[in-house]
């Protein structure tokens, strides 16, 4: 029972990281209509920007702010330099391009910060113990940080003009366009939101494990699985999808080798595609 609870808690931590990544993928998928294969590497980039500020001696929480801004800047520059010019092409051309962007970002990370594992903090953290459960304080930070970001996102989407426009565009792109929404500026906002969340997810992942140039790329499959599970263009679905995938992956380690966690995300993805391709929250098929 204890070990089940332990796995469940860690599943929620991992699921929070997936959820933050999946919201960005879901929004760009819904609004720009292509699967952004560079999103995982944007997370890596955010984590390394964070590292640069942490190594100046700043606390991790404070480092998140300039790191997120830097990530937003990169995402917007990539959009303006590359994706904007390809928007008239078929979505799959954008997909190929994003695959190239992923490789560019990863090699830049390797060139600037080096190819080896790095950590935010080398000192060991003593876990809290409750009723036989071991909890790392970092996990609490990750769960709380995710909750805060999700609440902020909720208010942004429900209360602001930009947020409402964003939801309208994810729902029905053409309809949103004819009602006079400035699609180009909403696209920039989408990248900004996606990049902030990606940076947070990358930094959380770096806190939980360590930083490596392929850390984000490895997360791409569970993030896509979470996006599709929740329904494309459904940010709330992405949150649910991320948590489900995270918990399922952790619980699966009771029966299969942890090396095959990826296969669990894949299996859920495939099942979802067969049973209900629009996702739990009824996004686009």
């Amino acid at each position, binding site marked *: 029972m204890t070990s089940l609870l332990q796995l469940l808690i860690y599943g929620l931590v991992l699921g929070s990281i997936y959820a933050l990544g999946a919201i960005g993928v879901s929004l760009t*998928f819904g609004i720009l209509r*292509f*699967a952004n*294969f560079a999103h995982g590497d944007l997370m890596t980039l955010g984590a390394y920007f964070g590292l640069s500020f942490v190594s100046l001696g700043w606390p991790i929480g404070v480092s998140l702010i300039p790191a997120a801004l830097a990530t937003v800047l990169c995402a917007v520059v990539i959009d303006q330099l*590359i994706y904007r*010019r*390809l928007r008239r*092409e078929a*979505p*799959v*051309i954008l*997909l*190929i*391009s994003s*695959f*190239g*962007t992923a*490789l*560019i970002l*990863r*090699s*830049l990370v*390797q*060139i600037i910060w*080096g*190819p080896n594992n790095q950590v935010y903090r080398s000192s060991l953290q003593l876990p809290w113990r409750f009723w036989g459960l071991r909890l790392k304080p970092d996990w609490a930070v990750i769960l709380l940080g995710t909750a805060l970001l999700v609440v902020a996102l909720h208010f942004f989407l429900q209360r602001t003009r930009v947020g409402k426009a964003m939801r309208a565009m994810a729902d029905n792109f053409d309809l949103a366009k004819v009602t006079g929404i400035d699609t180009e500026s909403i696209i920039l906002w989408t990248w900004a939101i996606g990049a902030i969340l990606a940076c947070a997810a990358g930094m959380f992942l770096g806190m939980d494990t360590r930083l490596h*140039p392929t850390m984000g790329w*490895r997360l*791409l*499959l569970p993030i*896509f*699985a979470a996006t*599709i599970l929740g329904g494309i263009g459904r940010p709330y679905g992405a949150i649910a999808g991320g948590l489900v995938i995270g918990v399922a992956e952790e619980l699966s380690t009771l029966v299969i*080798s942890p*090396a*095959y966690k*990826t*296969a669990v*995300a*894949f299996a859920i*993805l*495939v099942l979802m*595609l*067969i049973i209900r*391709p629009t996702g739990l929250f009824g996004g686009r*098929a």
Partner: protein
Amino acid sequence: MLSYGIFFLILVGIYGVLVLGLNLQWGYAGMFNIGVGAFFAVGAYASAIVTTPLTSDHLGGFGLPFWVGFLTALAAAGSIAFLIGLITLKLRSDYLAIATIGIAEIISQILKNEGWLTNGVRGITRIPRPFRGWIPGQDTLLYLGLVLLILLVVYWGSERAYRSPWGRVLRAIREDEPATLAAGKSVLKFRLQAFVLGSMVMGLAGALYAHFVNFISPEAFQPEFATFIVWVMLIAGGSGNNRGSLLGALVIWGVWSGSELLTNRLPAQWTTRAGPLRILLIGILLQVILLTRSQGLLPERPPKPILSASMGQRQDLSHNQDPAG
């Protein structure tokens, strides 16, 4: 210098086979496969397992002739593609891309973790090179002959397929799926055929690679070298065009090998960063091609419809009846 040239051409040939396989999927039928490296790896491992001499390190040691290995590679890559295709090909195109990335990830985990099957990260050694010792000292030259022969057969087959009614249906599906469906074609069946066939060609390229380098490990099938560069070759050469595919393989492999000469001149503290620098270069090259010349060096030129071209070519009329539907 000569041996470097042979080495270079063998690799261009192997990549040429890979690009032709990808062209069958993406260039002909518009199916996005990001798991090229996975099918390449499956072919390489399948052929290695059945052809290596007796060993206790991993499954295999059957010591069978190389052509049995090649057939095993075709069968293994084809069956995995069949399963993936069945699940994803009726959905929208992005899902195939995501599913193939999943397969690639799972296969790379299997290669690393299933020691009994693949010897894990230590890899499989002593993969025999065909024709060893037939003409002393000329192993690689003979092997180049084999690679070129297979490349030629795959090229010839792809060209025939492109012009055949089968290829025409694939292009129709790519351009306008609802219209093709309305014309009574079984879209799913055609897609599945192209996907399986393309993946089998990739598996064959994997077998060619394994028997050339004699040693394979999971390291060799990283997405950068086994998937990404193949895509850049196809886009640069011209997707949908088989000659373009081969030109792309030659040019991009040339750029890739040439960039090594360049990075070798970098100061010593930069040498560890030379690898990512070269990948960065290829990545930027891809973006520039997509932005400026997205049809590639040799754009696709579909054959003219038979009705308008049939005036002087009576014998072509027999092709007009479409047996594929």
